[in-house]
């Protein structure tokens, strides 16, 4: 069901949506962009929602719709920042580490955040959507626009890389502990 077209109730209805979803969307944005830019990106997300209000699904479906807009807004912000700075830097990595410095400075989590910053952005996003934004795997797959199975693959891959990095770091260079007894399939030898 879509929202009813405009009218006097528009701003009031939008305000209800804003109040209900602000915290989650603000959290999503603040975990991904530098603090100085966060309010601008949050405003952009809700401006898109306001301008396209007739297309915003009714609750509870509006939640994932807004996460999708937020994801695009953060990506757009990163691209414009990259263009502006003309630097070949890993912006997402910057965002993670910047957020880490600003927020969670507990040294226990440093290996986790360092390992996460080394992930491919799409893999890192899979972990963050579930473990930081508290979406279900199905919801996160929907936000990323991929199938549940595709999401599971990304999630597992990311989790394993972080786990291996954390374990190796905490064991001061001892051999990684993750080994599987599953026999490797026969492999071809073509070039």
């Amino acid at each position: 069901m879509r929202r009813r077209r405009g009218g006097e109730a528009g701003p009031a209805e939008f305000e209800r949506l804003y109040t209900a979803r602000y915290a989650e969307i603000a959290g999503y944005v603040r975990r991904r962009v530098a603090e100085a830019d966060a309010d601008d990106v949050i405003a952009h997300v809700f401006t898109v929602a306001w301008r396209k209000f007739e297309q915003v699904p009714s609750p509870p479906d509006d939640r994932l719709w807004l996460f999708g807009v937020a994801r695009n807004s953060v990506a757009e912000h990163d691209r414009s920042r990259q263009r502006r700075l003309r630097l070949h830097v890993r912006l997402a990595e910057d965002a993670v580490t910047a957020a880490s410095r600003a927020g969670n400075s507990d040294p226990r989590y440093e290996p986790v955040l360092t390992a996460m910053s080394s992930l491919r952005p799409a893999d890192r996003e899979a972990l963050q959507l579930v473990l930081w934004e508290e979406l279900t795997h199905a919801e996160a797959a929907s936000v990323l626009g991929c199938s549940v199975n595709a999401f599971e693959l990304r999630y597992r891959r990311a989790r394993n890389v972080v786990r291996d990095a954390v374990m190796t770091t905490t064991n001061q260079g001892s051999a990684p502990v993750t080994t599987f007894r599953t026999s490797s399939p026969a492999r071809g030898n073509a070039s």
Partner: protein
Amino acid sequence: MNIESLIGEANPVPAADLPSADSPQARATLTRVLSATGPGGLPSPRLSSRLVARVAVGAAAAAVAAIVVAQLLPGSSPRPATSPGHSDPRTLAGALNALSLLAAAQPAAHPPGPGQYQYSDEKSLTEIDTYKSATNYYAVSYSEQRQIWIASNGSGRIVESFRDPRLASARDRRNWIKDGRPSLRIKPSDQRYGKRQLSVGPANLYKLPTNPARLAKLIHSGAVDGGPVGSAEDFVRIGDVLRETAAPPALRAAIFKVSEQIPGAKLLGRTTDPLGSAGIGIAHWQHVAHRGQVPAETIESVLIFNPKTSNLLAEETLVTYTKTGKTSLTSWTVYLRSGVVNSIASMTPVSGTPGRSSGATT
């Protein structure tokens, strides 16, 4: 605690630290938003119901392609290549060209109609670890089966079950015993989802170009899903388009052509998937550095294709630890069956991939 809990705790901006919607900061943002152009201020996205054109390729072409791909399979007698490149199935270009021809010749999969669901059934190796401390943790691998039903409105059902728990090593077993031998059983789950809560793949699947050059440009730029750029990402996107989607044959044919251009993509050739079916393996390697704090890893992503249909049979992830040189198969997924079914309980597709019976079982 497991690694997921640890990552969750590392959240740099916990919800408790966020300003509420009633805070002056949030109210100022709301005022700013409402002062922008109101509803309707932006043009609606142009929606096209016209699907991309489907390419019809004759059965003869499919037969030729199948013969070419079959040359890579066990038991076949590979002939010396008569010409290099696209006609030699022992090269990446040749194998992908043959898979592309096969894909183009497959019947188009139709999306589910009213009352129907896109069904998929997969089996995978998954692992769950329990983390007590830096010296007390253990990993358990499970054989997981997942069945998914998705209606055209995004509603559906996911059924998951976990079997055959295995402690990954003697060390994991010792730590599990030390932890009091907790039950390793995981209860099966059967969850229903409302409208728009599930997705079958990239949202713009039917709008993607089937011209390989244009498609490659879109994929490489990240425009397909708005994600980052890079060859490893491109390889993931290839899998996303081919994995249990109703991608039109012409698109599937084009995506194989695109795969050929991804830097780092290699032909594994004859490969057997974890459940014993023979296929054609394509791989991509990615190096993970961890900023030099821990030994680098090389992650190998493998896609295995059915040599008779070009459908995706399975995926694997292997990790090689630079420090030890040890390679582990860390996860795999085998696609058992997919297609359109007539009810949310049905497991018999009325169309689509008929399951592994069409594969080349060894």
